[in-house]
């Protein structure tokens, strides 16, 4: 699968749910490429902006789209990585701002 194919398949799945790709296609393509790197490396599409533990169960919260996408898009108009955004964000009605990490700190240390 290449980034164009991944883009098309994810768009079809996510747009009906109200999540849109960032209008910056270059940013999106770089993230999709990183998702494919993680798929190859870990066997699942871990969020490229977070440190995965290489443990499927431990990292389930950061399988893209991560569980933090919903509250982040609701509060900031975009997810942590800026892959998925709302229509308002893409239209410039919401200012681009830094999205703070919601993943609990204890998750960062891995399962041990």
């Amino acid at each position, binding site marked *: 699968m290449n980034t164009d194919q991944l883009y098309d398949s994810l768009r079809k799945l996510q747009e009906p749910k109200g999540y849109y790709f960032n209008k910056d296609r270059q940013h999106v393509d770089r993230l999709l490429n990183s998702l494919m*790197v993680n798929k190859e490396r870990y066997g699942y599409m871990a969020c490229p902006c977070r440190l995965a533990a290489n443990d499927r169960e431990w990292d389930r919260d950061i399988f893209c789209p991560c569980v933090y996408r919903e509250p982040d898009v609701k509060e900031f108009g975009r997810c942590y990585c800026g892959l998925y955004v709302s229509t308002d964000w893409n239209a410039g009605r919401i200012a681009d701002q830094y999205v703070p990490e919601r993943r609990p700190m204890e998750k960062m240390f891995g399962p041990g």
Partner: protein
Amino acid sequence: MDKKVKLYALSTCIYCQNTKAFLKDLQVEYDSVEVDLLEKDQKLAVVREIHKITPTVAFPVIVIGEKVITGYRPDEIKKALGL
């Protein structure tokens, strides 16, 4: 520029790549580590190292002298560098 600059990054993280490009444009020399490419034990040690200096481990982490910046924040980086 006499402040030591260290970057903790992820190889897959676009904001980490943007931070590197930004530092390069500013002609700032820095040490960097790509945490996701480390072995498991080393990875844990580096996460603990980061957690000692900042409450949230969010990449990129940029250490400029005593200042710690998490996330790609060009204005804060420039300010910390005195530029």
